[in-house]
């Protein structure tokens, strides 16, 4: 009985004869399907990778930070209490830009190119897409100052100014009161914090404060702290840290241990233990000397990624010169942009002896 399955890029590459065959000798239909399937899988995978931090949207702007606090008035038989109004609102915007990856071939090249060459080009484009998304997330998270972007892709709102905000950064926007009716001063309350303590008790205190910064805004479901692997040894040495053990290790009967297992198959993308109730993860995209805390279980994500309204323009796509001949494409493109959404769900600590206690924006 013949085997069944779906043809993928892996099949093209593994079949040496087919891989070395020229694209021009095949009908487009025979090649485009596995390429498109691989693109769809790639797009689904990158969305899943970002899903703990980023929600998707097609909106340009949104309201954020409605202050809701009021008092009841002592009244008698004749009192008509005054109407209470003036709920201050903040706003957030999300930019939309376009990134291109040039396939960059001449007609002569296209006539001679092999299936393997074409597949490798797409794999490279997918890699470039991941790099661009990673850079977008990092810029949106770690930059502490708001900025203005101008609408370029929505015809109805062309040239509209969009105010792109960060996590709470003391810009004066109102901050919602928490469920215990505690209020926060939007002009002084910042989630971008600098400390000169890079280890020991000072860093322990600063990290506790970082976790509190997230939880005090009612984001306490599953707080995580993301660190660069360069900080792993420092964090492991903190008094407030309890490590996950590797499989096969049994903790001493009187020793504290965190309820989790260390993933020994990787070093730079794994949970390593608990710090005051927050799970500590190493992440490859975290810059060294920075600590990022947020509630990963909250549906109100720290960031939103804006995509085009048109479904055909979402994700990494082949920008064919003629849609009926999808292989004839000079570029692969992706439309996206990142901005803060739930500004309270995230706080970043920069720990550096030379920063003078001021948060320093990293450069990427």
């Amino acid at each position, binding site marked *: 009985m013949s085997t069944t399955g779906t043809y993928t890029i892996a099949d093209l590459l593994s079949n040496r004869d087919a891989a070395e065959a020229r694209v021009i000798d095949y009908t487009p239909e025979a090649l485009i399907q596995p390429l498109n399937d691989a693109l769809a899988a790639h797009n689904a995978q990158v969305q899943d990778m970002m899903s703990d931090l980023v929600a998707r949207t097609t909106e340009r702007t949104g309201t954020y930070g409605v202050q809701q606090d009021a008092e009841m008035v002592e009244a008698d038989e004749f009192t008509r209490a005054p109407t209470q109004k003036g709920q201050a609102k903040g706003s957030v915007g999300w930019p939309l830009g376009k990134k291109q990856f040039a396939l960059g071939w001449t007609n002569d090249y296209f006539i001679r190119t092999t299936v393997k060459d074409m597949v490798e080009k797409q794999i490279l484009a997918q890699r470039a897409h991941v790099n661009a998304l990673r850079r977008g997330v990092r810029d949106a998270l770690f*930059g*502490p100052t708001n900025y203005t972007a101008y609408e370029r892709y929505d015809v109805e709102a062309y040239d509209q100014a969009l105010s792109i905000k960060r996590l709470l*950064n003391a810009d004066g926007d109102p901050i919602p009161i*928490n469920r215990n009716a505690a209020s926060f*001063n939007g002009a002084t309350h910042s989630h971008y914090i600098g400390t000169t303590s890079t280890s020991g008790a000072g860093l322990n*205190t600063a990290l506790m404060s970082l976790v509190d910064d997230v939880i005090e805004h009612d984001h306490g479901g599953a707080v995580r702290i993301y660190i660069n692997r360069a900080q792993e040894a420092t964090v492991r040495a903190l008094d407030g840290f309890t490590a996950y053990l590797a499989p096969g290790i049994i903790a001493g009967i009187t020793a504290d241990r965190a309820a989790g297992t260390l993933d020994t198959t990787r070093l730079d993308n794994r949970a390593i233990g608990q710090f005051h109730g927050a799970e500590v993860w190493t992440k490859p995209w975290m810059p060294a000397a920075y600590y990022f805390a947020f509630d990963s279980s909250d549906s109100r994500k720290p960031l939103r990624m804006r995509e085009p309204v048109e479904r055909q323009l979402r994700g990494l796509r082949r920008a064919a010169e003629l849609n009926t001949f999808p292989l004839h494409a000079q570029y692969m493109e992706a439309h996206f942009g990142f901005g803060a959404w739930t500004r309270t769900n995230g706080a970043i600590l920069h720990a550096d002896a030379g920063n003078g206690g001021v948060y320093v924006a990293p450069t990427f």
Partner: protein
Amino acid sequence: MATIKEGGVYKVGDQFQNAKGEKVSAPRSTAGAPEGTALPDDFPGRAKLVKGKITTLEAVRAAPDADIIALDGIAETLLQQIRAAQGA
């Protein structure tokens, strides 16, 4: 002790900027240990008190309730815990 600076001022490249990206002067610093008994690590609301520049037990005892409640993130329940922990 870590040097603490006012919130809302950041270093971007070579410039100090506020939250709106406007250039500002370098913030003042408050280095050095304050006089008095430092708040223990497990003191209720410690992080919020320190952020509000109340860093010693003496300062907690001396601060009126209204001043403590005015700090970010402190409401009546936490104030009661603070008063219970501050001692005589």
